């Protein structure tokens, strides 16, 4: 496994001194026009620094995905502010990649053409985008599968293609919503390793929404635990594991790992009983 090289040459140019993402007092209420008002997100403040991996865990149905949609500007927020690089943003900020549990590959495009989708939208020349996509697919372990249609690939491979598509636009920040939830354990672990390597070696920032506590702890620098609906922040854990952070198995074997798991689990459990 590669160590996490943090050489300045690999590092994308930070566009400002501000952290990539700061969220202040974010709030979301559904159905305000009707009588069935439901508050999904009560009050959430988060910050994501350069090169940081932060996970958000919470009980299922607590509004994690809503949170991500709010950050991307796919959904209007009720109150609070979302600052991308210090600026108030409306709509999808640039240099941000987004990936969901569903791979959302376009079935009429081959793996390679799925990866070039974002580059086409940004008017990158055909030669350049093909070359970039080929390289990405190769680094992610899909050499030989470039011209396969998604319907002929396994779930793990499809999610790799989706990851390559997200990375093709060279985002500085990745927002991932349970990207590995549909995969079996081995495939998930391999993908997490690849993800950690790709994010850490390039000093990208990653915000991961997940319900998988082990995934959150093994991958992240910080884990934010949310409460039930309406979601609030219940706890924040700085994960201090003294191993190579691109090796998910090593993280699981480290002495602190289980303590983190247990305390986060208890925070979720307590919520279940109330």
């Amino acid at each position, binding site marked *: 496994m590669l160590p996490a090289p943090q050489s300045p040459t690999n590092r994308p140019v930070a566009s400002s001194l501000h952290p990539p993402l700061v969220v202040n007092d974010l709030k979301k209420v559904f159905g305000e026009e009707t009588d069935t008002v439901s508050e999904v997100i009560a009050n959430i403040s988060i910050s994501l620094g350069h090169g940081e991996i932060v996970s958000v865990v919470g009980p299922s149905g607590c509004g994690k995905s809503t949170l991500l949609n709010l950050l*991307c500007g796919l959904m209007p927020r009720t109150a609070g502010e979302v600052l991308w690089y210090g600026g108030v943003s409306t709509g999808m900020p640039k240099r941000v*990649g987004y990936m969901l549990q569903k791979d*959302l590959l*376009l079935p009429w495009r081959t793996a390679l053409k799925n990866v070039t989708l974002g580059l086409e939208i940004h008017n990158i020349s055909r030669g350049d985008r093909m070359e970039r996509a080929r390289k990405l697919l190769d680094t992610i372990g899909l050499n030989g*599968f470039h011209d396969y249609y998604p319907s002929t690939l*396994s779930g793990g491979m499809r999610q790799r293609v989706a990851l390559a598509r997200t990375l093709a636009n060279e985002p500085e920040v990745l927002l991932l919503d349970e990207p590995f939830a549909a995969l079996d354990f081995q*495939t998930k672990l391999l993908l997490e390793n690849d993800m950690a390597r790709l994010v850490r070696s390039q000093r990208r920032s990653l915000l991961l929404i997940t319900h998988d506590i082990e995934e959150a702890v093994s991958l992240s620098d910080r884990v934010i635990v949310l409460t039930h609906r309406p979601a609030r922040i219940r706890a924040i854990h700085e994960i201090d594991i003294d191993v190579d952070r691109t090796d998910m198995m090593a993280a699981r074997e480290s002495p602190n790992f289980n303590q983190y798991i247990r305390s986060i689990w208890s925070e979720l459990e307590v919520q279940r009983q109330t």
Partner: protein
Amino acid sequence: MSVEHHHIAGAAVDVPSDATLGAPGRRRRGRAFRAVGDNTLVIACQIAVLVVLLASWEFATTNSALNAFLFGSPSAIWGFLFEMWRDGSLITDTRITAYETLLGFVVGNVLGTLIGLALWYSRFVSRVVQPFIVALGSIPIIALAPLCIIWFGTGLISKVAMATLSVVVVALITAYKGAMTVDVDQINLMRTLGASKRHIFRKLIVPASLGDIFAGLKLTVGFALIGAIIGEFMSSSEGLGHAIFKAGSLYIIPKVFAALVVTIALALCLTYVVGKIEKMLTPWRQQ
């Protein structure tokens, strides 16, 4: 193919999941069963049914002059087919009807599909026009035939107009439905990649709607033919509809059937061609 794919999947970094291990075996067994047992048996049964039907038809009409007059007989139908072939009317009538049908089919589908897809752009406009589309779609096509004759004359144009009218609303509704049922997450993903509405339309909505559009095409081939034939029924000097109408008025029942057989053959041909084009344009759907 499935075996080969399985091997490659095993060699990749990806540990093959249960799905990739399980699927090929199941698929292979299924395909073997279909290839050897199913297909041949189905075709054999279809031929048997056809032969039995034709034989009993022939038998019932050989011993009764009245039956032969009212219902025709396979041998008489065959005779008329041969005669129509010899005097050239088979070819000219088929060609004229095929021409009307194809023109109406193309014009109707292009118009309907373009409007249907374009309605995706504006929810407001689509809501405004919705009742009008439903109203247009509920008009029985035969009721428009006299108007088409009055407006477009008794020649080719009126038949093409009839074929177009029988196609356009169905094409519009299927294309619109295809465009509107595209996964919202998929659209959001395009937006997060920086896509404009135009990008989303061209790279997502149009290709994603192709499945529905082709389903509509297969359906509307038949509708276009019906429209053209109704047009020919109303007023015409050539075409299969004209042949059916004329033979019917003169009580030459076997000739009616002969023209019907040709019409059916035409419909099958056109459907087959549309299916071929679909396969060509949507290679990702072939497993």
